[in-house]
């Protein structure tokens, strides 16, 4: 057994202080008749924040339900309505909560949307799921159609035609938002939101950089909580304040060489989603002297925004999101993380209801090994549906993998 240090001060009570509050605020906004929108990840949420729309994330809500151990019941509820068990568990979980659940829903459920906004940037599911929800709630849906970044370029190396198409749809988005909210877009306000979002991204990447320290001052359990702001409210002051505090705490820890565990045996990279229903698995890894020091997920959401060119920089930020690109992009990110974070092994969890996170993991495994001689484990799981693989099965596979790393 390894010596596990106390958890971080900044992230203690994170759920209560930020996530729970987020849902309380959203319900209050709904009661006060302020516009509430459902948003899919990889949607340019800064646009909503600048228009005083209250965004809520069905995906985040599903992860809350998984952590609270009710996701499977909710999935089953959606399955009874005819939604296949092979669909994205996030979507099944949220649809299940919409169809009516006999018990009390976590955080009183998602507030009913006045409208929904989605994008084809990350997956088909975002389009199809929101289409179903929009119909069930008879609420308007805006779709931002995003070309696939097949060239794999970063935000500075994108196809100009893709940027043009994206920007032209932002015009339509603001027209839609103006109609829904009855207020005009204030460009100054948009620039301010972008500046805050930019700052949030910068802080988040500083936090990630500090995790390169050996021993690492922060592991995946905390990162998967703290990443909440990157996804859900990057353009808000509370994100900046929280990340500043977290960064400062990590700086101290890094300076004093206080790691998550004192004697790190293995440092791992984690791809895709965490097991929301089983975040304890990271603590179990810690007890074995294993720390997940970098997640691909944590390296997906940051992006620099030029407040003087709001439309173009939003287009560049989201078009270049890794979820919208070929497997080579993922390989490049993981190879970089393995090198920079002094990593011994890579966990590649698939996600049963997600093609985007499942197809291609073998290519990643082979490429990382060929390039760096570092082993990966393709772990067949689902982030929120533990019927695919339960805790015991997951620990057994991880333990076997750790054995191979030893030799």
């Amino acid at each position, binding site marked *: 057994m390894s010596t596990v240090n106390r958890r971080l001060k900044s992230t203690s009570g994170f759920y209560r202080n930020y996530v729970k509050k987020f849902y309380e605020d959203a319900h209050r906004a709904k009661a006060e008749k302020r516009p509430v929108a459902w948003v899919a990840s990889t949607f340019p949420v800064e646009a909503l924040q600048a228009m005083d729309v209250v965004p809520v994330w069905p995906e985040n809500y599903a992860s809350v339900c998984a952590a609270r151990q009710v996701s499977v019941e909710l999935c089953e509820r959606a399955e009874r309505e*005819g939604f*296949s068990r092979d*669909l994205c568990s996030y979507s099944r979980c949220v649809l299940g909560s919409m169809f009516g659940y006999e018990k009390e829903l976590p955080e009183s459920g998602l507030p009913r949307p006045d409208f929904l906004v989605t994008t084809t940037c990350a997956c*088909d599911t975002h389009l199809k799921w929101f289409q179903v929800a929009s119909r069930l709630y008879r609420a308007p849906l805006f779709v931002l*159609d995003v070309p*696939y970044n*097949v060239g794999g370029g970063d935000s500075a190396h994108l196809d100009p035609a893709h940027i043009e198409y994206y920007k032209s749809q932002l015009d339509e988005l603001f027209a839609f938002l103006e109609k829904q909210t009855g207020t005009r877009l204030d460009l100054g306000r948009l620039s301010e939101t972008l500046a805050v979002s930019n700052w949030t991204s910068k802080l988040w990447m500083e936090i990630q950089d500090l995790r390169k320290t050996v021993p690492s001052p922060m592991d995946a359990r905390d990162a998967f909580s703290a990443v909440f702001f990157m996804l859900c409210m990057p353009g808000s002051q509370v994100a900046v304040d929280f990340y500043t505090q977290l960064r400062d705490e990590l700086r101290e820890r890094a300076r004093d060489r206080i790691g998550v565990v004192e004697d790190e045996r293995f440092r791992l990279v984690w791809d895709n989603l965490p097991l929301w229903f089983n975040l304890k698995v990271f603590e179990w890894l810690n007890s074995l002297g294993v720390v997940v020091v970098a997640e691909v997920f944590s390296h997906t959401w940051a992006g620099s925004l030029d407040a003087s060119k709001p439309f173009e920089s939003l287009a560049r930020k989201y078009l270049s999101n890794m979820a919208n690109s070929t*497997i080579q992009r993922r390989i490049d990110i993981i190879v970089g993380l393995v090198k920079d974070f002094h990593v011994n092994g890579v966990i590649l969890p*698939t996600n049963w209801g997600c093609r985007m996170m499942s197809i291609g993991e073998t*290519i990643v495994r082979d490429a990382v090994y060929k390039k760096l001689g570092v082993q990966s484990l393709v772990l067949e799981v689902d982030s929120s549906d533990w019927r695919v693989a339960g805790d015991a099965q997951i620990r057994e596979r991880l333990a076997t993998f750790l054995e191979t790393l030893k030799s």
Partner: protein
Amino acid sequence: MEVLQPFRNSLSNRHEIAKEWKSRNRPVVGWTCTYTPEEVIYAVDALPVMVWGTLGDTKLADAYMPSNSCSFARSCFNAALRGDYDYLDGFVESNSCDNRGKTYDMWVNYSKIPNIYFINTPHTNTEKAHRFFYEEVVRFKEWLERTFKKEISDDLLKGAMRVYNENRALLKRIYELKMKKPPLILGSEFLEIALSSLVMPKLEHNQLLSRFLAEVENRSDLPREGVRLLVAGSVMDNTELVRLIESVGGSVVADDWCTGSRYFWNLVDEDSDPLKAIAKRCLDKVPSSFMYGREERFRHAAELAKRFDVDAAIMFVIKYCDTHMFDAPLLRDELKAMGLPVLYLEWEHSMSGFAGLKTRIEAFIEMVGGVK
């Protein structure tokens, strides 16, 4: 019927047909999605062929693709790994669905096929999407010109549009023969005809279609009328499943498959700028489930159900097709609201996948036939 034989042969000899075409120094280009602007491939004097899988196992592909990936995409990739498509001079993939977009990585990384091209396909048909897709089609044309060193003039495109429209119109006429009672042709016969259009030279196919139409009215071996069915779903690249339905008393008279009615339902506007018209048809045709306008597909299915006077519907969803799985409950409800009994089936694209379906299809047809 003897006049059906050439269609049937083209399905079993599809690779030989392609190789024969190639032996005369003309390229063969594979594609996987019916949103591919095929006319442009035809215009460069290449043979466009749809890539299919087989109904055997997918052991080779399973080493690379997980069990929760589209079993059709896996089967196609398996055929590629086995070398079935080694003759291809080019291959066109698209982001029209997640499975397809991700399988592109597989082909790029593991297949030996040269000249792999990716077309970005919008998931909506707004004016802006049209503008974007037109540019994509222009780029595709330029890529074909560069790759096969041949200029594609407007005249060549117009010629291609004529040939393709003739093919679509003929297929539709034959399709409508199933409106008759009893239907003049079997569902499996029609599927052989439709599928052969995806793998053989279109000019030759048009001749065969005309010959078939001339002779079919006098056929002596009229099919037996069974329970009249609409089948709904995504792609159908083989006739086994329809044969299975026929073997237990069903008559597949209408379909909304992308390789069935949705392939030929809409014509390209021959009076417009060729590339614009080709691009426009792609986005405006009866949509596939990855497109935003799903109600239009449901409408298409419902209209077919009425016009072809079906008794029931069977929905086939290939595992693991997200877009169809999301559409399924609503389509099921809409068909039921028309008073149709509906059977919903998910199937693995393989022979063993079929075996599991037979009992359920048989029971369903008996149930519908009983009340008929």
